[in-house]
C-alpha cells in the first residue's frame, strides 16, 4: 500500500454512507473492498452494514451487494460463487460480509457448512462485539465484563468470548486470519494473500464501535491499536488449520489490559478483581497462541 498512489478512484467506498462518526466497520470495509476490488461481489447479511450501505437507490459501495437473511450468509455466498462460475465469471471475488452476530451466533451453522465444503469465497466477519445495530445486545463475541443492553449496568456479560478462530481452524480451511483497523497495511496484506488462495477463507476483523463500546469517536484507531498491543486481539494467520503465524511481531512487554478496558465505558463496572480475571484469560490465550505459533515453526 502506497498512500501517495491512493485517491478517490482507487477506493470502492463512497462518502455519504450511514455509519456513525468514527465507525470501525466502515473503515474495515473500506480497506477490504480496496484490497479485493474492483471485480467483487458482496453478500451482506443483516448487520450494521445493512444500514451503512444505504437505502435504495443509494449504495455505499462501487460493487454489487446482495442482502440476505441473517442465518444464511454462508450458504448464499456458496450459491453466488457457484452461480458466477456457471455464468463463466470464475474470477470475480465473492465476499460474504457478516457482523459478529451473523458469524458467531446466528450464522454459525451455514458458516460451518460452507467451511466444511471448502466453498471458494472469502468470509469476512467484522466484529464489534455485540448486536450494535439493534441496540447493543450481548452476542457470543462480547467479551467478559462488558455491559450491554441485555446485561445492563451493573450487570455484565458473564461468559468468555467465543474463540471463532479455533472453530475455523478446526475446519482445516486453507486460510484464516485476524486483522484490525489500526493496522491497514497488515489487513491489506492478509486480504491480498487470501485473494490468491482458492477455497474457504476467513478473515476476522475487530472493528471498534464508539457508541456501543462507550469510546470517543476519535479514539477508534487508538482503541484498535490498544487491543493488539495489550494482547487482547493478537494479529495472526492460520494456514490449513495447523500452521499458525504471528503477523505483527508480538511485543514481549504487552501493555496491561487495564489500559484497554479503562478507555471504554462498557467496562466501567469492572473492578480490579474482574480485570484480573480477564487479564489472566488474555494471558492464557496468549500463551496457547504462542505455543501453536511455536509448534508451527
Amino acid at each position: 500500500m502506497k498512500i501517495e498512489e491512493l485517491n478517490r478512484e482507487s477506493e470502492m467506498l463512497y462518502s455519504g454512507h450511514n455509519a456513525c462518526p468514527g465507525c470501525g466497520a466502515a473503515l474495515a470495509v473500506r480497506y477490504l473492498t480496496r484490497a479485493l476490488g474492483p471485480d467483487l461481489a458482496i453478500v451482506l447479511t443483516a448487520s450494521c452494514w445493512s444500514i451503512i450501505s444505504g437505502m435504495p437507490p443509494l449504495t455505499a459501495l462501487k460493487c454489487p451487494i446482495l442482502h440476505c437473511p441473517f442465518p444464511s450468509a454462508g450458504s448464499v455466498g456458496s450459491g453466488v460463487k457457484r452461480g458466477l462460475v456457471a455464468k463463466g465469471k470464475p474470477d470475480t471475488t465473492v465476499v460474504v460480509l457478516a457482523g459478529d452476530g451473523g458469524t458467531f451466533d446466528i450464522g454459525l451453522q451455514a458458516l460451518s457448512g460452507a467451511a466444511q465444503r471448502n466453498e471458494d469465497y472469502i468470509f469476512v466477519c467484522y466484529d464489534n462485539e455485540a448486536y450494535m445495530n439493534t441496540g447493543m445486545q450481548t452476542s457470543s463475541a462480547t467479551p467478559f465484563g462488558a455491559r450491554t443492553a441485555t446485561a445492563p449496568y451493573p450487570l455484565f456479560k458473564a461468559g468468555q468470548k467465543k474463540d471463532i478462530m479455533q472453530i475455523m481452524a478446526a475446519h482445516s480451511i486453507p486460510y484464516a486470519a485476524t486483522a484490525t483497523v489500526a493496522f491497514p497495511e497488515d489487513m491489506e496484506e492478509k486480504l491480498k494473500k487470501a485473494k490468491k488462495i482458492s477455497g474457504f477463507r476467513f478473515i476476522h476483523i475487530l472493528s471498534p464501535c464508539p457508541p456501543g463500546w462507550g469510546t470517543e469517536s476519535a479514539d477508534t484507531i487508538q482503541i484498535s491499536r490498544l487491543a493488539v498491543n495489550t494482547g487482547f486481539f493478537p494479529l495472526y494467520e492460520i494456514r490449513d488449520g495447523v500452521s499458525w503465524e504471528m503477523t505483527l511481531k508480538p511485543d514481549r512487554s504487552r501493555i496491561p489490559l487495564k489500559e484497554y478496558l479503562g478507555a471504554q465505558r462498557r467496562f466501567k463496572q469492572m473492578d480490579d478483581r474482574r480485570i484480573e480475571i480477564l487479564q489472566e484469560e488474555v494471558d492464557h490465550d496468549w500463551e496457547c497462541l504462542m505455543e501453536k505459533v511455536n509448534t508451527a515453526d
Partner: protein
Amino acid sequence: MLPEVTKDPVCYSCGTEPSSANKTGEWRFLTPEKDIRLSPCRQGCLLDGEIPAWLEAVKNGRWEEAWQIMSRYNPFPALTGYVCFHPCTENCNRGQLDQEIEIHAVERAIGEWRLENYKRVDRPKEVKGQAAVVGSGPAGLSCAYYLNQGGYEVTVFEREKVIGGMFALGIPEYRLPRKVLKKELSVLEEEGIRFVSGCHVGQDVSLSGLYEDYDTVFLAPGAWKPRKAGIPGEESGGVWNALDFLSLLNKGHQPEIADPVVVIGGGNAALDSARSALRMSNVNHVKLIYRRSRTEMPANQAEVEAAEHEGVELIFNALPRKIEEEGKIKEITFDFCKTNLKGLVVDQSRSFEEKCGTVIMALGQEIDPSIFGEPVKDSLFYAGGDFTSGPATVPDAIRAGRIAAMTIIARDAGLPEPDLMLPDLEPVAFEELNLEAKINLSLQQSQAKPDEEAGRCLGCGTCNSCGICYIFCPDMAVEKVDNRYQLNMDYCKGCGICVKECPARAMVMEGGME
C-alpha cells in the same frame, strides 16, 4: 447440466446511485481543521524559515514551490546551505527518534536547483523608487534582493573590487565554493540589480549625495575594524589581523606567512584563519590559542572539531602579554588565565613562551561609526548586518536585510510598519508527535538524495502530506487535490480520528459547524 444464461438479469435492489448524494457532513457538530504550529527547527532557524513547508515540497518533487517558500525568508539557500551552522538541525525532533534531518543539505539542493533553473521573469515596469544599498555583503545583497522583488531599482555600492563582502572576502573557499557565489551574483544582476564595485561611500561618493540621488538608502558596510589586544609588539611586522589575512587569501594573493603559525582568538574568524593557514603550502604547524576554555569559545563547535581533526593544535586559558621579535622568530608570552564569576582572572606567575614565525590576531571586529566620514541622517536611517549588530553570522545579516527591505516597502506603500518577528510560541515537542501509526513514516537513516532526506521530516506542526488522515477517515472526507490532502466538509461527520492520529499534530478540532 446447468441452464445456459443468455442475458444478465438486472437487479436494482442494492441501489445504483452513489451514497455521496447523502451529505452526511450535516451530522457534524465538531469540525477538524488544519493547523500550523511552530516547529523546533523553525524556532532554531536564524532566518525564521518555514523549514517543514519547504521540506514537504521537496519530498514531493515540487522544487519550484520549495524555492518560493524558501525565498520568503532566505533568498540565498545555495550560500547559506554552505556557510550556515544549521541550528535548525540541532533542534530537530527526529534526533530523538534516530537521526536529525540534514536540513542544510536539502537547503543547498534547493539553492542549486534554483541557480540551475533560473529564468528571468519580466515583472511590471512600474518602478516604485530608486534604492541605494551600501555594502554587498549578506545584509546588503538580501536587502537588494527584496527591494528588487518589491519593484525598486537597486544599486549596490561596494568598497572592494569584488562583490560579496563577507561571502567573498571573509569566508574561506573551502567553506563556500566561489563558483556558487558567482552564479548567485550573476542571477542577481540578471534580475536587474546594479553593482558598483570599488566605490567607497564616504570617499568616492558622499553619503549625503546618495541621500539626494536615491529615494531609499540602506547601509550595510559591515564591521571590519579589528579589535586590538593592546599589548606591546602587536603592531610589528609578521603580526596579521585575521580579516586582512583572510581577505588577501580570498582575493587570490598569497600573504607572507612563516611557519609555525599562532592564531590568537576563539571566534569563527580565528578558526577560519587557522584552517586556511594550515592549507598553505609552507605551513606545517598551526596553534590556536584562546584565553578562555573550550566550552566558552564563541566559534561553532563543529568547526572547532574539524580544525582539530585537520591538525590545528588547540591551547586554552592563555592570554598574550607581549610579542617580542628575535630576527624572524617571534616570541609571545602568555599568562595563565581563567574565567570566574568576577570575569577573567590572570595569573602572571604561570606563564609560558611560544615561538613562531607568524601571529594572526583574531580578537574580533568592531563597528566603525566614522566609516562614512559624516553622521547618518536619523529620519532616513535604514541599516543592518554587522554594521548595526556588531559581528554576527551570515543568516543574521540576511535576516536584517530582509526586515529592512520589508519595512521600506511598507513605508513607501503607506502601510504601518510590519511585524516581522516570529510569535514567541512553544514549539511542538517530540513527545506530542503521534508516531504510532508508522504508515508512510520513513524509517530510513540519513539519505543522500534530498527528496528522500526531506521525506524523513516528521512535520512537527506543519502538514507534510503524509496521508494518515486520508487512510484513517471512515467517511472518505479527506480528499487528495494536487497531491495535497484537504477536508471535504460535505461528508466530514466530525469524528476527529484525523486530529487524533495526525503524526505532525498539524490539525485541531474546532467546536460547532463553521
